[in-house]
Structure formats: structure tokens, C-alpha cells
């Protein structure tokens, strides 16, 4: 009984810890967007052609946050 309770507790604590990964991904996305803006303000004429790269970069940075989110979901609903 106590083992089951500890497992339920650890599952939720683990889910919460995994959610930190989403915050870390947010730092990465902010870094991509901030650097894009810094570059775009230095050379505004080149900015429009690089928006696709901005979104691809954001998507790749976000992918790793999604894995953290996935671990969190798995711990809450699947394990």
C-alpha cells in the first residue's frame, strides 16, 4: 500500500519536474527570437527573407521542450 502511494506521489513529482523542461525550451525560443530581432534591426532589408528560418529555429528549439511535456503527460496519464 505504501509502495503504491509512494509511486503515485513520485509520478506527480516527476511530472512536475519534467515540466521544468518546458520552461527551459521557453528560454531557447526567446533566444532564437531575440537574436532574430537583433539581426533584423541591424539589417532590416534582410529580415523578411529570414522569417522562415526564424520559425524553423523556433520549431526545433520547441521540439525538445515538447519531449519534456511528453514525459510529463506520460507520467500523469500513462505510467
Amino acid at each position: 500500500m505504501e509502495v503504491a502511494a509512494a509511486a503515485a506521489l513520485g509520478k506527480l513529482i516527476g511530472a512536475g519536474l519534467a515540466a521544468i523542461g518546458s520552461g527551459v525550451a521557453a528560454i531557447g525560443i526567446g533566444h532564437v527570437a531575440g537574436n532574430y530581432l537583433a539581426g533584423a534591426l541591424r539589417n532590416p532589408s534582410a529580415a523578411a527573407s529570414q522569417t522562415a528560418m526564424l520559425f524553423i529555429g523556433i520549431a526545433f528549439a520547441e521540439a525538445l521542450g515538447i519531449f519534456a511535456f511528453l514525459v510529463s503527460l506520460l507520467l500523469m496519464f500513462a505510467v
Partner: protein
Amino acid sequence: MADATQGPSGLQIHPMDQFVVSPLFGGGEGDVAFYTITNVTLWMALAVLATLLLLVWGMRNRAIIPGRLQSMAELTYGFVYSMVEDVSGKEGIRYFPYIMTLFMFIIMANVLSLIPMSFATTSHIAVTAVLALAVFLAVTVLGFVLNGTKFFGLFWVASAPLILRPILAVIEVISYFVRPVSHSIRLAGNIMAGHAVLKVFAGFAGVLGIGSILPIVAITAIYALEVLVAVIQAYVFTILTCVYLKDALHPAH
């Protein structure tokens, strides 16, 4: 999930209740077979209908000076066309119809799901996983058909030092097979999280009485953000499809 907070101070509505798939005509919540017409079916059909309305009915006049609806249809078409051309290159244009279909379906499903009391179809991993797996399989088959064994050049980073290449090859293979996972969960996760946040704030509004004006203002702001997210996620899904297509067309690093 079943034993969620139901106490007197807990939320009145569970934020995840909105994602329950239920049959439209009779039957309980779990009473779903693969042929059952559910709320997911209804809202996916409405997304297709909205696409047809914009692209077929909106273009019915083919006027030289377009009206509002025709302008929207033309702008959307031109937007996706130039995206495919920029990211995938000239050879990618052959696959433009499929990418346009993906974009229209996802953006319509995302935006329709923002109607209050509607159902967010793209919040379900089952829906987005099918879209992402279709892209993954199509791109893999296409890569092998067009390039033969040269497609393995995608995993063999020729520009890296020789010692590093086997290690990089392992990483590249893993990242290749993880693509459909991140591709589908990005869309589902963003839409699901956004809608859950809206419901959480709606739950606050339900228990705060006169102070509920604060959550309502917050909901309005988050809703505006969600409109942005709905469009951006459709764009991101489509542009990543274009990137994967480019990899299949030109596998050499």
C-alpha cells in the same frame, strides 16, 4: 484524472473535460468504435467544409478585381506557394497540392476550435499523429524513390571530420525517426495547452463572484494569443513539412 479536485474550493469544471470524445448520436463517452460519428468527426468535417467554402465558393466568380473572400483565397494560395518554393525549392512545387491541403485543414481546424463550445480536433495526438506520420512516410518513400541509396547521405554528414561521422550518423538517425513525434505533438500540445489554460481561467471566473472580471480580462487576452498560436502552429507544421520535403529531394548535407 478521475480523482481531480472536486472539493468546495476546487474548480467547477475540469480543464481537460473539453477534450472528451463522445458520439453524436446516442451512446456514452467510451462508446466509440472506428466508424462512430463523434464530435471529432463533426468538427473535422466542418474544417473541410470551411476550406471548401473559402477556396471553391470564394473563387466562384474568378473576378479580375477580387472581392474580400477571393482576396483571402488568393493570398492564402500565394502564401503557401511561395513558402513551398522558398523552402523546398523548384522541385518541391510538384508536391504543393498536398502541402496546401495540410495547411488549409490544420488552420481551419485550429481556428474553428476557437469558437466557444466547439471541439479542438487538432488537440488530439491521434489526429495530428496521422497527419505527421503521413508526411513522414511520404517523405521517406519519396526520398528513396528519387535518390535510391543516396538518400542515406542524409545521415552521413560529409562535411564533418571522419572520426565524428559515425557518431553523427547515429544522432541523425535518431533525430530522423523522432521527427513525426515532435511534428505531431508540437501541434497537439500547443492547441491542447492553450485550450486547457482558457478553461482553467474560466474555472477561476466561476468561483470568484464579482472579482471574476479579472479572469475574464485574462481570458480575452489569452484568447487573442490563442488565435495567433492557431495560425502560427499551422504555419510551423506546414513549413516543417517543406523542410522534410527538401531533405528528401536533396539528401546530401
